[in-house]
């Protein structure tokens, strides 16, 4: 029987982990909402960002957080370019399927290039405060984890405000809700889609930096992220950002708690169990998102 302290510790870790999941899943579900695209390369970009942060730290010695100034706009641009130059080339009839393959191949290219440039060695950023931690009601919380979480939370908030308050956000939501209708009321859905994609990749940039702070990275790491993320967006309801965030928190927490009785490996399976359960019981997902009914 695990002690209360351990449980509490795990809950906190769960929250911190869930925060990161939430941010990344938000991006992933965004692509789907906009274009019905399952963006397999999302986590590959995540790792790419992490490597950039690591390299930035190694070259300049500055705090990896500063690399955001470069990676976020860079990734935004990449996202727009990807949508405009690649995805729009695909035939609408087969878009969902073919886009999967396309993004998959992009993921392979990124992984390959990372392996080529940085070798397969596991990398980890060494910071002065890497080992530091705070006492928090008897639980110890690593400073880097807190920073990572804060970063994710801030990004989520920014995303939320952008989507709810800004004019662009309205257009984006309209596009997700009903593309044709959006076009009817004069929204240039293609441009919106492009920017939406950029936004999604920007979340990957932020997430990657947050990840690099406290975890080891290696080129093939992205496979271990895309699985949980995809599970999350299905459970949350494909295309629903709040749904994804919610599901991320719940599942992140579950994973962290299940590690106590079952150990790390088995705990990871919680995502896939949730995925299958959702599809079997409630294909449209548990937190809204009616798109899923048809996709």
């Amino acid at each position, binding site marked *: 029987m695990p002690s209360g302290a351990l449980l509490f510790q795990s809950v906190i870790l769960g929250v911190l982990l869930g925060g990161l999941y939430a941010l990344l899943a938000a991006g992933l579900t965004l692509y789907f909402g906009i274009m019905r695209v399952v963006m397999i390369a999302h986590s590959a970009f995540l790792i790419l960002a992490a490597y950039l942060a690591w390299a930035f730290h190694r070259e300049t010695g500055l705090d990896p957080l500063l690399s955001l100034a470069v990676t976020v706009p860079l990734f935004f641009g990449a996202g727009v370019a990807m949508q405009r130059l690649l995805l729009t080339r695909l035939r609408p009839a087969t878009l969902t399927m073919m886009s*999967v393959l396309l993004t998959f191949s992009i*993921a392979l290219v990124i992984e390959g290039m990372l392996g080529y440039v940085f070798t397969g060695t596991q990398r980890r950023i060494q910071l002065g405060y890497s080992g530091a931690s705070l006492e928090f009601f008897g639980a110890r919380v690593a400073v880097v984890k807190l920073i990572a979480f804060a970063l994710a939370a801030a990004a989520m908030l920014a995303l939320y405000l952008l989507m709810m308050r800004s004019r662009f956000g309205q257009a984006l939501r309209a596009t997700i809700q009903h593309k044709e209708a959006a076009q009817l009321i004069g929204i240039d859905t293609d441009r919106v889609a492009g920017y939406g994609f950029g936004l999604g990749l920007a979340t990957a940039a932020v997430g990657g930096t947050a990840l690099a702070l406290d975890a080891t990275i290696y080129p093939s790491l992205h496979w271990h992220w895309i699985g949980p993320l995809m599970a999350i967006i299905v459970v949350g309801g494909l295309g629903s950002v709040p749904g994804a965030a919610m599901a991320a928190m719940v599942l992140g927490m579950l994973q962290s708690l299940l590690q106590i009785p079952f150990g790390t490996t088995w705990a990871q399976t919680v995502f896939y169990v949730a995925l299958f359960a959702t599809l079997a019981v409630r294909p449209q997902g548990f937190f809204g998102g009616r798109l899923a009914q048809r996709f």
Partner: protein
Amino acid sequence: MPRDSDSRRRLGRNLRLASLLACAGLVLSFPGLAPNPYILSVGVIVANYAVLSTAWNFVGGFTGYISLGHGALFGLGAYGTGLLITKAGLPSFVALFIAAALVALLMVPVGFAALRVRGASFVIVSIALVLILLLVFQSWASFTGGSRGLVIPRPFADLTRPEHHRVFFFLFAGLLAVALLTWWLVDRSRFGMGLKAIREDEDKAQALGIPTFTYKLIMFVVSATFTALGGGLYALWFGDLDPVFQFSILTGAYMVLMALLGGVRHLFGPLLGALIVGCALEYFKLEYGDTPLHLVATGLLLGMVVLFMPDGVIPALANLSARFSGPAERSIRDVTAAELLESNRREAEQQEVR
């Protein structure tokens, strides 16, 4: 139907038969031609690829549903066979078929979850399948051997390695033949017609009374069965299983690449793709010993195919030869172009009649 087309058809049938026999002959004579056991082993690998991509094409080609998770089915077949031999002590080939049957059974609920809703969820499930099985087979070490791997006794203990390769080349070729035959039978059947309708437009197909979900599920299970057989045979040939290598997304990716490259709408498309990719892989390994860029190459190739020839090389070939062949064999397109004019003229006439 005009007369000449009838005779043309007969000619066509003979030509096809001839070329088919030619291919078969070549395949069977390969082990004889192979100068050394290495080439022979490459042949076995390519044959295995061919089986897998053809098996994949049962789903991808007919229903148009892209599965990136067939690597998992391959792994299941391999491990299933291996475990039935080592744990249950079954004879190798009995184990092979039982394992395939079990995989088929297991894929019914999975297919149910994956196929009830359209497209995206299927892809997601297919990938998730690989990742979850990797986790399970790694963690459940007491049963699967986990990272220690699983060693499978050779079915023919007394054969030298080259002989062993030869035998398995023929076994894979046989399995391939069965898979191709099945594909062909489905392709010409009413069932197959329904499947193709699903690929073209699932709503429409349903509105026409085709039980799309059942059709998709059946095809998924058939595909799984053949993939599992391929995996099991591989296990018997290779002898060493390790979760990390069996449940790899790349395996599935290669199947897709091969099928797509060859052309998913064609019986021999995947086989062709397997030949091209398989030979390419080995060639590059021989020429540029260690290439850290093999992933990049695979990725780029896949991207190219998806963007520029989603129908594969076979239609490309067909059009190419269409350009050289005489008026006797016009390609469909210009036939219709002419007939479209014709039909429009008719419409005009009828208008005047009124």
